[in-house]
């Protein structure tokens, strides 16, 4: 090759490199190369701005000294620093670290790639991607989701109370059913979220009664066939009221199905077996237990013993066997009372 063409090729390479440096400098993410000892070999403009010093002072600087990082609230040591982690050839990893500046704490997603070229020391490319705003937005989102959840749960509680306010003789019925249903769900090993919406569905399972005349609800004597049919409509009415609300959980189904029985003899749809959702099967049992154990305007309390007999006697026929067993365990082991609720809470709060 002639001198002229060597120079030509040098010029070509310089142009490419020149473009590359400009391109790297235009990237918002901070990028550096370090040698295997963590000394900075090159940095782009964004990195210099991140550190707040001129780029030229970065050359040869030790990354760990230049940029102390934190994780989970504590400062990390040299070994944990991105530029010092042991990596295989041509491997890359990424993690989030916190970088404390005088006036704020940044969250940086740091990704490291190791490059091994034959004939020279291995280098690492370290890229710093600012995710501070993302993390803040996530935290705020979680906070507002939690607030909304609390409001929703509170609202459901209010609805439950509104239903009960019309029917003073059975005031507290839904609440007691809800407590028992929750305890049964926990006993059956359902996860925390699941147990919560069994509880909530139970808290308003009788919302359909709101359309019934108060006189029928608290009638002291026997009711007529017609009055009974009218009362039975509360399951369907409850479903109609609830079905168009987009709850995160199928609350409407609990109101709809809590009087269904496994053998299809229930109402309003005569559903059988697995067509009845598990949550409604739990509330059904809790409902029966509570009703029979408490006073009603038309009869005194039948008692918890007879109530348990009812569900064990019809275990598998009307009532889900697992639900019945869980409910019986709670009472037999003395862990639940209708007046006081669960005596020891098994779930961690």
């Amino acid at each position, binding site marked *: 090759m002639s001198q002229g063409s060597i120079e030509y090729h040098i010029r070509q390479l*310089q142009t490419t490199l*020149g473009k*590359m*440096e400009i391109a790297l400098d235009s990237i918002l993410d901070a990028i550096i190369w370090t040698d295997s000892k963590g000394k900075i070999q*090159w940095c782009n403009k964004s990195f210099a701005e991140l550190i707040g010093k001129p*780029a*030229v002072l970065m050359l040869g600087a030790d990354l760990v000294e230049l940029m102390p990082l934190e994780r989970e609230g504590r400062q990390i040591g040299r070994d944990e620093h991105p530029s010092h982690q042991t990596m295989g050839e041509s491997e890359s990893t990424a993690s989030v670290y916190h970088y404390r500046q005088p006036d704020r704490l940044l969250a940086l997603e740091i990704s490291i790639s190791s490059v091994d070229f034959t004939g020279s*020391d291995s*280098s690492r490319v370290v890229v710093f991607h600012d995710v501070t705003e993302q993390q803040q937005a996530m935290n705020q989102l979680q906070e507002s989701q939690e607030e909304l959840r609390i409001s929703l749960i509170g609202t459901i509680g209010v609805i439950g109370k509104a239903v009960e306010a019309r029917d003073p003789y059975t005031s507290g019925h839904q609440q007691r059913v809800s407590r028992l249903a929750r305890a049964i769900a926990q006993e059956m090993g359902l996860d925390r979220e699941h147990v919560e919406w069994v509880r909530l569905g139970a808290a308003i399972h009788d919302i359909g009664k709101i359309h019934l005349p108060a006189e029928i609800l608290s009638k002291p004597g026997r009711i007529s066939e017609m009055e009974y049919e009218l009362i039975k409509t509360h399951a369907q009415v409850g479903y109609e009221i609830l079905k168009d609300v987009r709850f995160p959980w199928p609350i409407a189904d609990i109101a709809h199905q809590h009087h269904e029985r496994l053998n299809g003899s229930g109402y309003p749809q005569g559903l059988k077996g697995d067509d009845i959702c598990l949550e409604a099967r739990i509330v059904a049992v809790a409902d029966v237990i509570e009703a029979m154990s408490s006073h009603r305007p038309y009869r005194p309390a039948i008692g918890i013993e007879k109530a348990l007999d009812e569900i064990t006697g019809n275990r598998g026929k009307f009532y889900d066997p697992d639900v019945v067993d869980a409910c019986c365990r709670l009472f037999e082991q003395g862990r639940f009372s209708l007046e006081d609720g669960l005596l020891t809470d098994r779930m961690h709060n």
Partner: protein
Amino acid sequence: MAEQPKSIDEMLREAEIPAIVVDENGIVVFVNRPFEQVFGWSKDEMVGELIVKIIPPTMHDAHNLGFSRFVTTGRARLMNQPLRLAAVGKDGREFEAEHFIIAEKAEGKWLIGSTIKPL
């Protein structure tokens, strides 16, 4: 101040502090006597060689990028200011030195010169 020459011409006449001048290909066109003494290479061993000869290997990437950027865009980050950078001599030993880099166009082509004062 001798360490902060204002022109290539001054650099060529510099007699106390090591000085080196390269063309826009990064090829050495001049070194002075103090340079030969400090670095250990003679004028003949240096002229016609690439500047990276005196730059520690770990700094080659930074040099290549910065030098290329300068000759293609005319913009530089490292010029006209004292810089503390490592340099390497004939014996392979690296040492810290204060550099002062300037550039000038001569007949349409760049000449880049640096004083290199060992610290």
